[in-house]
């Protein structure tokens, strides 16, 4: 009798679970979201000196976070954009706020805005997002008048030189380039292992180019 008291609830619970699972998996999932695949071609800088020479500004900073997005040349919807067939379609952009801790080349404010391709909108092997809290060494070009007239949110901002090529992760007293293939030969399996450099030595190299 006691056994039956236990067995029936267990069986019932199992049936209930089974029913819930059946319904759960029977409900169609959301409409599939369009995945954009973005391939970007750019100048690959293969040394810190070369990156420095091409940059207006080189900083070490802490990523505060994302402060804006734009698509279609500053507008956020096709309607707002009013896109006609012959207009340039904008690229999905993201703006990051960076707290500058050290300026190695050029002059900057304590906090700067850096524009990049929005990886939340597309799959692109050459761009990784800057995440809040990350310490990074950035090689930057200042946006000049007339450049990218479609961007609206921030008139004064910086571009990262050659996407991930211009980003190094700072880890204690070392730095690692995000775009390792610019600096090392491929491994036997075609992958690339990011080299680690001494931060002080890299800073000295940057300042020697100035």
């Amino acid at each position: 009798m006691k056994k039956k008291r236990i067995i029936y609830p267990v069986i019932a619970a199992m049936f209930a679970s089974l029913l819930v699972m059946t319904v759960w998996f029977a409900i169609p999932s959301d409409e599939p979201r369009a995945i954009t695949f973005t391939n970007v071609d750019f100048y690959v800088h293969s040394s810190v000196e070369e990156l420095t020479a091409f940059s207006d500004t080189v900083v070490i900073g802490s990523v505060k976070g994302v402060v804006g997005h734009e698509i279609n040349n500053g507008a956020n919807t096709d309607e707002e954009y009013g896109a006609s067939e012959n207009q340039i379609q904008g690229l999905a952009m993201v703006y990051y706020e960076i707290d500058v801790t050290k300026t190695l080349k050029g002059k900057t404010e304590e906090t700067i805005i850096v524009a990049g391709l929005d990886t939340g909108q597309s799959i692109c092997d050459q761009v990784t997002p800057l995440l809040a809290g990350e310490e990074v060494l950035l090689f930057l070009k200042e946006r000049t008048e007339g450049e990218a007239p479609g961007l609206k949110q921030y008139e004064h901002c910086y571009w990262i030189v050659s996407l991930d090529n211009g980003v190094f992760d700072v880890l204690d007293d070392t730095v690692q380039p995000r775009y390792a293939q610019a600096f090392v030969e491929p491994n036997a399996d075609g992958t690339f292992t990011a080299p680690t450099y001494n931060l002080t030595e890299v800073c000295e190299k940057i300042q020697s180019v100035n």
Partner: protein
Amino acid sequence: MKFRRIKESISLRAVVAAGVSALLTLTILTSIATPASAYVLSGVRYDPNSINPIEYKFYSVDLLYILAFRNAEAVWDATSAPGYFSEKSLSLDPEIEVRNADFGTGFWAITEGTDTNRDRLWDGNEVRIYFNSNANEMGSLTAYQKMVVAEHELGHAYGHAENNNQGCVLMRQGWDKFTCGTMPTADDIAGVDAIY
């Protein structure tokens, strides 16, 4: 008699050891050998039934980029790669939309398309190619270099990804592809063959 047995035993062991050693070496060599073809594919492509031709249309493109693109098209069409490209200025639904603009500093060109159904085919059989005419970017390249970048972008439209594993291929990222002779290379073409 005893000596003979020992000898036979040793030679049998030696043969087995040699065989195992050879097999092991072969396995290691096979696993680390560089493949003859090193092309890298993006995984998304045109419908193989719709690449004869792949139509393209210019949308507000400067003459320099039009010429670069037309020359790049001619170069690809002269290869044995499957499919061919064809300009259709009146097309309402081209397979490639070509544009140029000043996108700021950061890159030369972008090829992008979508794959909503995850069927590994470009949505609408269509991609967009953007040339960045910024003075620091494609604006600073020679006519020949612009053409090579356009060839590279057409490689992406076909379904190639970037290929930095080899020294001299069209699909290599950056400057090297400008300085190493005729493009696309046999490896680039083999990649398109593999895709279609």
